């Protein structure tokens, strides 16, 4: 079997495994937390020794992968201040499938307002500062990111059960500080680089924690494939993903 055939076979096996995994989770019931998939596609261009430009799109599922949860597209620019210290800024357009919500009256029995799931847009801006140091083949990095998200008002999305009227969901602004600590290891003569990180989402209090464990696979320096597992724990109800979720993520990035 030549190299090309072997690559296709490996890719087909990988896709099939994901489908089986997804179908398995879809049929599973009584899950205390949710499961979803993440698909990411990106490209990065080195403009100069100090500047990098990137674009990225992402698709996310929820409800044990049965429901499309989010689609996003973003652009970012990164500036290398000194060796081991980078600053970056970016914008992301988010198209969310907002989850259904039902609020109860004070007696906790009668339904008050119902918001069926709906697709809506959000705009997200971020500014980051990140530092990293090498300790032998181990790389330790810390990234601090300020994130601002704006959700415009959406008409006729909230149903008042008593009045039988639809009303708009109000526009919302949110500021968050995201802090991520990551460890990665570069094995000699091996194209797989494992990594692990933990990220805290802080909006006056810790709202969410995200842990990733995965592996990067570099092919011909230009192609980077990643496969990772993510666990997201929610401490405080926010705009999205209000329950603990396990994800399996797949990403591909092309470097110009």
């Amino acid at each position, binding site marked *: 079997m030549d190299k090309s055939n072997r690559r296709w076979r490996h890719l087909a096996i990988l896709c099939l495994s994901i489908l089986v995994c997804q179908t398995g989770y879809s049929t599973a019931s009584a899950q205390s937390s949710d499961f979803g998939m993440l698909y990411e596609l990106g490209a990065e261009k080195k403009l100069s020794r100090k500047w990098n430009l990137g674009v990225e799109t992402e698709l996310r599922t929820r409800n044990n992968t*049965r429901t499309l949860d989010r689609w996003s597209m973003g652009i970012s620019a990164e500036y290398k201040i000194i060796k081991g210290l980078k600053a970056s800024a970016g914008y992301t357009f988010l198209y969310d499938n907002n989850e259904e919500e039902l609020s109860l009256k004070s007696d906790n029995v*009668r339904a008050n307002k119902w918001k069926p799931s709906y697709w809506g847009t959000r705009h997200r801006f971020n500014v980051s500062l990140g530092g990293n140091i090498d300790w032998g083949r181990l790389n330790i990095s810390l990234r601090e990111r300020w994130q601002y998200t704006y959700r415009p008002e959406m008409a006729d999305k909230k149903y008042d059960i008593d009045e039988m009227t639809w009303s708009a969901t109000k526009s919302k602004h949110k500021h968050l500080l995201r802090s991520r600590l990551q460890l990665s290891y570069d094995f000699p003569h091996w194209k797989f680089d494992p990594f692990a990180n933990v990220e805290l989402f802080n909006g006056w209090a810790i709202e969410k924690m995200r842990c990733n464990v995965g592996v990067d696979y570099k092919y011909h320096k230009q192609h980077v494939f990643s496969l990772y597992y993510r666990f997201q724990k929610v401490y405080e109800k926010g705009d999205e993903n209000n329950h603990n979720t396990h994800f399996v993520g797949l990403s591909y990035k092309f470097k110009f």
Partner: protein
Amino acid sequence: MKRKFIYIVTMCLFVCSCVNDDSYTMDDFRNTISIVYQGTSVQVSGDVKGLISVNGAHVTVNGSNNTTANLEITLSGSTTDGSLLVYNLRSYTLVLNGVNITNANGPAINNQCGKALYLICSNGTTNTLTDGATYAQAPTNSTGEVIDQKGTLFSEGQIFFRGTGQLTVNGNGKNGIASDDYIIIENGNINVNVSSTGSNGIKVNDGFTINAGTLNIDVSAKGARGIKNDATTTIAGGTMTIKTSGDCLIETNDGIADTTACAGIKSDSLFVMTAGTLDITSTGDGAKGINCSADIEVKGGRMTVTTTGTKDYSKPHGLKADGNVVFSGGEIYVCSARKAISTDSSFLINGGTVMAIGKKESEVSVNSTQNYSTYDDDDEIDAIGGESLSLDGVTYTIPSVFTCRDAFVIVSNSSM
């Protein structure tokens, strides 16, 4: 082949992710009761909370407690001696799904709920409501007060007309449709016929709006109005045809005679038209097209008004306003047996296409911003029923019921 396999697997991944994960639907929030009229009896289903009481084919819904949110009542069948009386604290939906109710002693439907009534005429159905010439003594509510019964279809609260089915309301004793709140027609195919023993076509206290649908009103009682509205009248779409044929109603109270003239629309506050079509024909003595206690504003749509009555007790003006009459858009054609436009204030032509024909002269305010022409009796313009009249690029076919020789005419359009 390998690529195809990858594409298929990828497609499968997406297809697997296309399920809605909502736990509820609109049906989960409805409290649905079905009432089928069967001559002198009814068949009720879905009344899990025991809200319904029945006497022959006279049905009372008692939802006067806080747990009856989202009530939906569906009516079907036919009766010649039946009714529906609803007490409810919350807004609810009434679906007319092919029902024919005649109540010789009162309203066919009496809604005592002060909140919104969503009246839906199911698509493809024909529904008829008829009252009698005299009403029996009204019942009392839970607080001992005698309830109102002001028409064949009466509501204490707002009425929102929806659905594309047909509704015919026959008024023989009082108004055809009456609301002590406001009425909004969002859709429907509504016919209101009020006989000489009845009163107005639609009587409403707090405002009337039509956004879409068809509304035909035919009233023949003395002093009756197609629509009598104590607040703002808004024509924002739809197709309306109103005919009144009654003469003036003269009532004597304490030795003083009080005269009430018919009108297609009587509005006690602003009348505004922005879209749709409105056709009014009033043929009785002193019967007006539109009689407004405030301003009349026409910004769009097509309005045709014809009055043909005598002036024995009142003057049959086309448009009469206690405030200003302002035309700023749309098409306005008026044929009047008296003045086409009568106002106690200003008559401004600032836009639109206008042909106003009257037996008497109407005066346009000099500060109008659109050019216009006026013709008086010396110009010998004859407006003959069924014939087309063209002046200054404006053409209108005179309604067959109207003829006026040596008419006073005002013509205006944007190209003058």
